[in-house]
């Protein structure tokens, strides 16, 4: 059975995603032309977005990665977010762009922003491929670049997972409800 058989409908095709990323990359290249920004991505969901976005940006950039535990993770036993992987780069007085696959509640992004702000970057903004505003709790995030608005449905593909699967789909789609129900 193919992975794509679990998808109820495709929201954004591979072509649509790449078109949008090129537009976002052009904006970032213009806005940060004089600054050589550091793109910080959060593993694992933003893996493909970071790879494609960074390659479409035409100005000098550096990249770095973070990983944190997520609520509900089997590894998240402490009751609080834990950094699994911190940045290798120092960000003090640097222009930092946090690259996210999706922002929905905003809780993860808010935590990351607080963590990064404490290190005194020159600027700190967010670039997200998907924005699920309907489920936002923290609605004060500095989202500078936004790829697509998505409905409040369970979306997978292009880095987004359900139980660690479906990340490698080249498109973004809505998971069939029966697939989610079967996992309960």
């Amino acid at each position: 059975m193919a992975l794509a058989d679990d998808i109820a409908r495709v929201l954004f095709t591979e072509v649509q995603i790449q078109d949008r990323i090129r537009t976002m990359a052009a904006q970032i290249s213009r806005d940060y032309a004089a600054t050589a920004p550091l793109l910080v991505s959060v593993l694992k969901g933003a893996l493909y977005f970071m790879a494609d976005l960074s390659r479409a940006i035409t100005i000098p950039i550096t990249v770095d990665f973070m990983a944190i535990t997520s609520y509900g993770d089997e590894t998240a036993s402490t009751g609080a977010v834990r950094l699994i992987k911190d940045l290798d780069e120092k960000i003090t007085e640097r222009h930092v762009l946090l690259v996210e696959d999706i922002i929905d509640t905003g809780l993860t992004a808010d935590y990351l922003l607080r963590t990064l702000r404490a290190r005194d970057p020159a600027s700190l903004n967010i670039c997200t491929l998907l924005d699920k505003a309907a489920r936002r709790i923290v609605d004060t995030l500095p989202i500078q670049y936004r790829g697509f608005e998505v409905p409040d449905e369970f979306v997978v593909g292009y880095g987004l997972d359900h139980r660690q699967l479906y990340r490698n789909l080249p498109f973004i789609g809505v998971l069939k409800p029966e697939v989610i129900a079967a996992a309960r």
Partner: protein
Amino acid sequence: MADRTDQGDAATTRPRFAHESEAEFARLLDFYGIRWEYEPRSFPLQRDDQGRVVESFNPDFYLPEIDLYIELTTLKQSLVTKKNRKLRRLRELYPNIRVKIFYGRDYRSLLLKYGLAKAAARTPSV
């Protein structure tokens, strides 16, 4: 009915929550370091001739750092309709108050996002 004299956050005594869904939501906020208060304020919606409050709205959570009230509604549709009416009235009387309501479906999808399928299944449908 929750003990509304209690307020709580990650650093203080936890309140007695009216529903498990509220306790789960508090754990979620704690996990990401978001300060919260439980039912800290009652908003009068209607008074009788003597000025006594006969109807009020008590949002479940207040997040002081983002100045946002949150109401979790995992109830039956008939009760949701009543709550929606109260919410509209709240917004009329207190236009500067920021309040967000999570319905049963919203809350279940939120739990599913975090892989909490069993908790989502326990949340009643609306």
